[in-house]
């Protein structure tokens, strides 16, 4: 994966397959402490202890088309390369939380990439799922909650192209602001 936004898009496919209808994406960048936290939390069907252990293993997948599953192992490798690690917690019937910690300024830390494209893709392709995206930096906070958007747009579908275009511009402008105006 070339950047963190693609890792996120990939990992959240697991939440989609697990039939989650609420996915929370939380990113916390702290330049002063030089840490980056990324968490994905869903209310999907969850995994038992046995499956959690296997999910870290590249040669495990629930898919039947192929015998490898690389999403979580690739992200774990990225985190470890940046003096961090990945934690996977899950409860059957309740959901899963995946959390990674990386050194923000590590030379091997991939760039964020197009986070706006990742969030927009998720919303567009999964209009029945609610997403909460919150992103904190030392300069500010960006928050997007599709439940709030639905309240405003009423009967207009969230995957309508005009709504999607608005969401993209909301996120890209917001990211610009919380990055101190520099992308």
């Amino acid at each position, binding site marked *: 994966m070339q950047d963190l936004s693609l890792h996120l898009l990939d990992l959240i496919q697991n939440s989609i397959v697990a039939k989650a209808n609420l996915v929370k994406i939380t990113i916390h960048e702290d330049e002063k402490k030089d840490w980056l936290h990324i968490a994905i939390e869903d209310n999907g069907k969850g995994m038992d202890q046995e499956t959690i252990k296997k999910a870290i293993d590249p040669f495990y997948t629930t898919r039947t088309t192929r015998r490898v599953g690389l999403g979580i192992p690739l992200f774990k490798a990225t985190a470890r390369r940046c003096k961090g690690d990945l934690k996977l917690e899950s409860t059957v019937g309740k959901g899963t939380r995946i959390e990674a910690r990386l050194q923000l300024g590590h030379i091997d830390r991939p760039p964020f990439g197009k986070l706006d494209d990742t969030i927009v893709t998720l919303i567009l392709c999964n209009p029945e799922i609610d997403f909460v995206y919150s992103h904190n930096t030392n300069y500010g906070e960006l928050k997007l909650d599709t439940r709030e958007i639905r309240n405003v*747009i009423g009967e*207009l579908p969230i995957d309508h192209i005009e709504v999607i275009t608005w969401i993209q511009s909301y996120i890209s402008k917001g990211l610009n602001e919380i990055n101190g105006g520099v992308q």
Partner: protein
Amino acid sequence: MKTLKELEEIRQRTLESVNLRKDRKGARVVVGMATCGISAGARPVLMAFVEEIQNRRLLDATVTQTGCIGVCRLEPMVEVYMPGEEKVTYVNMTPEKVKRVVSEHLVNGQVVREFIIGAVEKKD
């Protein structure tokens, strides 16, 4: 910061056209978005479809995703379903190819044969 108020305006402005969309008879574009697709560049391909569809105001077309289509070496893959016609599978897609697929296939109903799975496999 942009505000939710703009969304309220979009809602009022757009609701009329949404009524037309209730029974969606337009094209359906499905992009493979598993680890293989994403790492091969599926997201820019999907975003290019969104942009082209928005530019051409194809308001009855839908863009969505699926998991691994099964031939990972040919990702990014895109399936196009036109109403009343067989599914067409495009392989090794790029945002540049998307423009042609939208104008030739979605708008004019002509399959872009050189990009479909059968043509690409023969060449190899």
